[in-house]
């Protein structure tokens, strides 16, 4: 938002002074996101030290003896009371010395991480337990694999950077958004039932290969109608652990708002709708078609293989 509005203002000022043939707002989208990433890292760096974003990229890009850089770095001011030092370097290593930092990263494991104040790495340390009086949530940079890292705070991932391209952590359907939509589609549903459905939906969103969870008041009849395009199951209450198993196969899982499952691996049908989006995959579009043309009130959680997570109707 900040970078976007800055660019707009720059373009507006140019509109007043420069020939109108000049292109406006022609900055590359990812370049703008990189600037936003830099801005965010500057915000979390103690004392506003510049260069943390680029240092993290530099370190993530290097390999050590052929291995990808995997490790953790805690970012805090020096001698932070919430960090228990494990090993302190006699001479701190500057963050711009990517090769040395990459080598030192090999030392971090589990809760033991490199300690840095965004300009130097001081050694190894551990964050005290949450129950400790000195505890304070700190910024953590986690190097996940080659040229990839993510920044988190208090266990929440704020930014994931892959090949110097910042992105948000994979979108998850927010609980309150789910509850609101569920209440609209199934007005008579109790709060407990909505919570249970949310547990199931949340489990579905963790399926890495993608899946569709359809919640419909007519699940039993729909399972019967789609007999040839699904595996009907003896009705049973769906639990998150069973859902993880049944979503390993292609197709949708059909459940009632009460959580009763009637079919797995269902190939959904439905009429083409103007809401369809050809830029999205078949899983999204078939769920959209189904939800829009279903005779019964229906809600679908669509987890696409490429990482999108959608709640239909949205």
């Amino acid at each position, binding site marked *: *938002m*900040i*970078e*976007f*509005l*800055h*660019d*707009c*203002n720059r*373009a*507006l*000022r140019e*509109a*007043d002074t420069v020939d*109108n043939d000049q292109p*406006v*707002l022609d900055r590359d*989208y*990812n370049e*703008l*996101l990189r600037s*936003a*990433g830099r*801005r*965010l890292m500057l*915000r*979390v760096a103690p004392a506003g030290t510049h260069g943390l974003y680029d240092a993290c990229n530099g370190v993530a890009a290097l390999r050590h003896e052929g291995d990808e850089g995997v490790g953790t770095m805690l970012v805090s001011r020096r001698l932070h009371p919430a960090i228990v030092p494990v090993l302190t370097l006699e001479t701190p290593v500057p963050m711009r010395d990517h090769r040395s930092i990459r080598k030192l990263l090999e030392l971090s494991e589990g809760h033991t991480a490199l300690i840095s104040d965004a300009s130097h790495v001081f050694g190894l340390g551990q964050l005290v337990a949450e129950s400790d009086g000195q505890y304070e949530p700190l910024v953590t940079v986690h190097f996940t694999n080659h040229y990839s890292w993510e920044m988190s*705070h208090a266990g*929440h*991932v*704020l*930014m994931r950077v892959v090949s110097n391209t*910042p*992105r*948000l952590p994979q*979108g998850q359907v*927010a609980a*309150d*958004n789910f509850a609101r939509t569920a209440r609209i589609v199934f007005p008579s549903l109790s709060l407990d039932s909505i919570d249970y459905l949310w547990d199931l939906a949340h489990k579905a969103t963790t399926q890495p290969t993608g899946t569709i969870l359809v919640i419909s008041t007519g699940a039993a009849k729909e399972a019967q109608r789609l007999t040839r395009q699904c595996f009907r199951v003896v009705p049973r209450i769906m639990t998150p652990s069973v859902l993880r198993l049944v979503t390993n196969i292609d197709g949708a899982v059909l459940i009632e708002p009460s959580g009763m499952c009637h079919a797995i691996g269902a190939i959904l049908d439905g009429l083409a709708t103007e809401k369809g989006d050809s830029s999205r995959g078949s899983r999204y579009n078939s769920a959209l078609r189904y939800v829009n043309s279903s005779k019964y009130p229906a809600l679908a959680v669509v987890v696409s293989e490429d990482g*999108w997570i959608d709640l239909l109707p*949205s």
Partner: protein
Amino acid sequence: MWEHQSLFRVSAQLFAEGIFNLLDRSLRPEVFLLGFASSKEADEPGAVIIEPSTMRYSPLDFKDVKGIAATLETDTGPQGIVYHLHPNDHDRTAKHHWYELVCRATETTLQDLATSRNENRRSFCAVPVSLQGYLVTVVLQLSTDCYDGYYTLPKSTAGRPVNLPHAA
């Protein structure tokens, strides 16, 4: 306001869609321009221009923005009595300060409008630019549910990003 304002608005809309769709398609960015005529009273016709004119807001919705900005000015604290040695510097600072107040007042007005109309939109305004007799503000609106769904850093201060959508 100026000849290419529609073109600029469309470019900014496409630019916003390009950026924010890379982050999260549910952010649904919407861009429009607000122009406050420098030489007209708030209730005169043409005092506020909205681009596009088909926008769901009317110029009358923004007639009080300058008034709100003026009330904010009385509430500026010690910053209000800082004088710069060079008159040009002082003028520039005073002008910039006024633009920031207009920006804050516009954001407050839009937020109140969104609340009263039950719109799921969160508004952000750029500091206005003086252009051909108008103070032109770029307004970016994002889906509140989606925007608020992302974790934000604590201890936020003005102008410092709290998360990636805010920084972008």
